[in-house]
């Protein structure tokens, strides 16, 4: 059984009279990396701020090691066992060293004891060579590294990260994610990170919580959230591009035949015949073949169709294919050339029954 470090029960927060957060239950385990993902305004930052005791909550309890977090002296004690890093580095107008030492100074740590701790944390985030530099004269990446070192310097039990990579350019972000992962591993700190980028969450997290409208829509292991979303909106947020509504026609031995309109597809699951369901298919799970080809794969869903639309997404192409229902697939530049794909091209598509995630249709 994993030790619970932080528990949230019935937490409600409103801003200017508008409810913005409603967390029924959330448990954070010691040593885990939990990511909060969700669109802007989902309440990720608000949740972090209320976990840090920085904004008032209307209702509910936050328990740290089983003890309720309240206002007053205990709140300060609680805050001193955690650290927070924001999107902007928010450094003080002093040297990198002084910045990393800031939390320790506030706790009245002796100068002599402080030095090795500050140096260790500057090393950890590769800013030791900037020690005596003014925090005004370092790059954005270096500044965020300094901010992370400052957070880790107080040896927090829990670290809250609010979109820590959102203002960084890709190379800086890559190397900082690497160093953060390393620091988490060495220090065995528990972390909760808010991010709008599911790829960042996937790289660091033990668990991912998808937030929507101030609530946690789904929480679980990354593969679970990515491949088995509980609702259409979660599915959209985790990158599922094909959502089909349908009705179970038959169900036997863990395989269902689902009528999705003009076609039937096969998927794993055991809902009863007649049930209204939603089927989710990730675009990277769809294989595209030339029109009329007979795929030699084990995929049980094979359809012929026509390319309706082609969009570039980074180095991949997104194809919208009409094969009796609308299916989205990602293909590489190479595949585009090999298959000579263009709008109107006939294609054959295939996906496995296990690649289709089916949920019962919700009516709200």
């Amino acid at each position, binding site marked *: 059984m994993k030790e619970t470090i932080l528990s949230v029960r019935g937490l409600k927060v409103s801003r200017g009279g508008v409810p913005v957060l409603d967390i029924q239950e959330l448990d954070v385990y010691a040593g885990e990396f939990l990511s909060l993902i969700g669109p802007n305004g989902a309440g990720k930052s608000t949740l972090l*701020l209320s976990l840090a005791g920085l904004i008032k909550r209307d209702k509910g309890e936050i328990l740290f090691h089983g003890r309720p977090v309240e206002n007053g002296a205990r709140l300060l004690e609680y805050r001193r066992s955690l650290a927070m890093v*924001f999107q*902007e*580095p*928010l450094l003080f107008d002093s040297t990198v060293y002084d910045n990393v030492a800031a939390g320790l100074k*506030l706790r009245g740590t002796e100068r002599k004891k402080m030095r090795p701790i500050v140096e260790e944390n500057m090393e950890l985030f590769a800013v030791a060579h900037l020690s005596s530099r003014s925090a*005004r004269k370092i790059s954005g990446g270096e500044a965020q590294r300094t901010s992370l070192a400052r957070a880790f310097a107080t040896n927090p039990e829990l670290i809250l990260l609010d979109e820590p990579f959102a203002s960084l350019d890709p190379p800086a972000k890559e190397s900082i994610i690497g160093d953060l992962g390393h620091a988490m591993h060495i220090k065995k700190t528990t972390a909760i990170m808010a991010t709008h980028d599911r790829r960042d969450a996937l790289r660091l997290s033990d668990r991912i919580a998808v937030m929507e409208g101030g609530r946690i829509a789904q929480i679980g292991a990354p593969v679970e959230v990515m491949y088995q979303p509980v609702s259409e909106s979660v599915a959209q947020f985790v990158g599922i591009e094909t959502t089909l509504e349908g009705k179970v026609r038959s169900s036997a031995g863990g395989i269902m035949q689902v009528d999705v309109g003009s076609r039937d597809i096969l998927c794993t699951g055991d809902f009863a015949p007649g049930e209204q369901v939603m089927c989710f298919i990730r675009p990277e799970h769809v294989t595209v073949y030339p029109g009329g080809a007979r795929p030699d794969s084990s995929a049980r869903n094979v359809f012929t169709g026509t390319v309706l639309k082609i969009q570039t997404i980074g180095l991949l192409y997104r194809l919208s294919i009409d094969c009796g229902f609308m299916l989205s697939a990602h293909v590489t530049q190479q595949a585009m050339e090999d298959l000579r794909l263009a709008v109107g091209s006939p294609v054959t598509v295939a996906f496995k029954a296990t690649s289709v995630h089916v949920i019962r249709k919700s009516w709200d």
Partner: protein
Amino acid sequence: MELILEGIKKAFWLLVTFDPEVLGITWLSLRVSGLATFFSLFIGITLGTAVALTRFPGRRFVVSVINTGMGVPPVVVGLFVTIFLWRNGPLGFLELLYTPTAIILAQAVIATPIVAGISLASIQKIPEALRLQILALGATRIQMVWLLVKEARLPLLAAVMAGFGGVISEVGASIMVGGNIKGYSRVLTTATVMETGRGNFDVAIALSVILLLFTFIINAIFTSIQQRERPR
């Protein structure tokens, strides 16, 4: 034209020979305005910081009052300080009228809103997120306020400069409450007014040059502070 040249020559002479009267006037000016600024810092920074960091009904009104105070004509301040210090005024028993102390008092009243206004603006300009960051670093409320004031130290230094610059060049209040008494309450500006009135342009020019020199130095420092980079 000759008049000005003569004046500048005389001014130069008075300066290089360290004329005791000019020196005395200069010293009193610096001391009076320096002390007035010093007192205004205490009240101004405290007031500005308090208003910047709190929310209360009527706050906007208080901010408007402070901002208006930044531009109150010194003669108006001089008038009211004179009334207060008048023999049978509320503070008449202190017998401060026509003393350097009265000038310090009047100048502090002039400088306080300037310092408060600039403190207010500079503390308020610090992003809200930094306040949260400081608390998240484990600061008590007092530690947080102290760190914010420290963070705003450059603009606050500008407040010092603006306050000092405002009062050292001020003449109306000084002449009204100080009386421009020779060797006692005569400062650079009041002396300049008087010497000009008497037609002693050379002395007046000398005094003006000294005053300009100080204003220039203050503005030079002020500008160099303003031009510094913003932190990340």
